[in-house]
């Protein structure tokens, strides 16, 4: 870890950020297929009743990620 940057897991409900990069290769591919492309805007829309998983809106789609998966997405 060079710099401790923010990840998707740190967003609060309703907050929007821009995706910068991923810290896991296999996951990155899946995430990009779901529309999570670096440079795109992403918003945390809902949090499941028990605090996990999260639902993000990106590129007009609602994508649900577990906390562990959201931690692998760097944002700015």
């Amino acid at each position, binding site marked *: 870890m060079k710099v401790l940057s923010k990840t998707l897991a740190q967003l609060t409900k309703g907050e929007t950020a821009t995706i910068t990069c991923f810290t896991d*290769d*296999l*996951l*990155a*591919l*899946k*995430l*990009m*297929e*779901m*529309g999570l*492309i*670096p440079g795109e805007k992403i918003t945390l*829309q*809902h*949090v*499941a*009743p*028990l*605090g*996990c*998983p999260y*639902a993000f*809106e990106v*590129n*007009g*789609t*609602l*994508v*649900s*990620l*577990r906390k562990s*998966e959201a931690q692998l997405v760097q944002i700015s």
Partner: protein
Amino acid sequence: MSHDNLFITLQQKFTLAQQVKVALIGNPNCGKSTLFNALTGLHQKTGNYPGVTVDKKIGICKALHPKTKQIHSFRLIDLPGTYSLFPKSLDEQVSFDVLMDETNTDYPDIILIVVDASNLKRHLVLATQLIDLGRPCILVLNMIDAATENGIEIDVTKLAELVQVPVVSCNARYSEGIEEVKKSLFTFAQDIKPQQSLINIQAIVNKNYADSVHRSVNQTSIYASLLNQRNHLEKDEKLKEFNEKFFTGFESRDMLFRFEKIKKITLDCVNYTVARKDLKTTDSLDNVITHPFWGFIIFIGVLFLIFQSIFYLAEFPMQWIEMGFSFITQKTRQYLPDNFFTSLLTNGILAGLSGIVVFIPQIALLFGFISLLEDSGYMARVSFIMDKLMRKVGLNGRSVIPLISGMACAVPAIMSTRTISNKKERLVTILITPLMSCSARLPVFTLLIGIMIPSNYRFGFFDVKGLLLTALYLMGIVVAIGVAAILKYVLKTKERSFFMMELPVYRIPQVKTVLLTMLDKVKVFLFDAGKVIMIISIILWFLTSYGPGSEFKRIDLEYTDAIRKTTSDSTKQKLTIAMETQKLQSSYAGHLGKIIEPAIKPLGFDWKIGISLITSIAAREVFVGTMATLYQSGDKEDNLSIRQKMMQEKNPTTGKLVYNFAVCLSLLMFYAFAMQCMSTLAVVKRETNSYKWPIIQFIYMSVLAYGASLLVYQIFK
């Protein structure tokens, strides 16, 4: 096959009016299956891809040639939903193999790419990959109405020009534009030029390497050759060693360049006029549906509704089916001579058939509901709100519905596990579902509890019988969860567990889709699981109707003679019942009961209970009927008389009552845990596509049942 040849061969197929193979492919939630249903109607069938449990849907579509006015027939295959041509799951690998392997029997002549027009940008990732294969492709913009409603205007002509393949728009849900889709297939009847690659291949992989791969693999385009090579690397270690370095970062670069290209394309031909309405509606609905309090309330309400329907609503048609079959059986016995074939027909085949058909109402109802939940978008929310809870024991949020349905019947419940995409989580759900207390256990439980506990025995305000029954249900749930937690560590998987999934926008479910799903599932059960149930049913018939040696003949002679001699009807009936009892006791099943007696003695069971354990493999409720025959109770449906007979039964050597508290409790444990249901085993065999898992399940549940029975009997005796 080379690029140009492919198009020429296809053109010839049209000229000769030969059947053309078409594959429907698209992202999950693009409405692909709705389009498939609209194009094929009832001319479709479901099977399995060889070696894997992925549904294979094939259908026939007839269309009129716009010029020659001849009817052409197209063979459509509905491929599993795929996000890209980089397969990561079993489903995606199946789609890839069908699309890319020329030797595959389903290798398509035309690729029908289905995209959600209201989600064009993301769906074009797969679409542009497919176009870059250089094969005959048609791009179908589905849900064009949703796009228009949400202020997305698409210039179809311009889009076709940019992606170089024919583009048609439709609304499969409302059967709009289906004729245009059919017509578009005939584009390839004319001389048509193959398209160029949409992205610059040199930007994602070394040019010399790409050329050399293309020379050796010789697919329809450089990109197709590369994808094929990449797929081979996974299987061939030697090939991987030399080629791996060229593919490092290949997928990510491909995605990024593709997305850049898509952005340019959509900028030129898509106009966003207003903010999206459907997302807003979905968002406000989700505020309630995923709410910490209301979310669970709604979910419990939905579960309650499903459970009540399959438990009570299915009861009526099930009774009609049973009544119908017993009527036919009776008439057959009446009009056919009493011989081997009549016995095989009535007690073997008809009994087996009745045991299969009786499941139809429950299967149809459960799948009606599941289809409604899937189609409306609610099913994805079930996973969303239940994930954290279920993950702890190695299950998926979607496991909840099969498990709750299992309390009515494990057969439709296990069939419904197909909605769980993770292989391991699905397998665990299949393995534990039969532990949930199903409706077939109820008659056994009530009979035994009735023997164990005197009437009006109360504990405070509660009837002890009711309390015990509730405890048995709860025990089923607790043990199921416990077994899941153990299996989580025992089962190994190569597949990495992802949760990541799309939460589709809410839509009003479609009646046609719901009905077709119900029909499809009933058909699959009848023809796939039905075979196994029939075979077991005939084996059980043989075991109970025939015996070793001459004893059977002796009983037959003795009683037929006596029956013929008497004139009184009631004596006749008594003699017949006594004959049945003797026959069952000296049948192969009876002998088996005696053989297993030493093994079940520690559980407090005698050989008569042993016979019931064997016949109960057909279905748990058969226990009651077998008990009736064994204890010469005339009316098999009359619970009270069987109960009285059983309560009076004494052990011939000790003179003590056989069905004491400890034995009954031990039997309850046995029936709660043992896998005594051939239909469930048949369905598990079908759903796991192997004999291994039903056998493992049978063994682990038997061990569990034996252990539990042994424990309670040794404590309470």
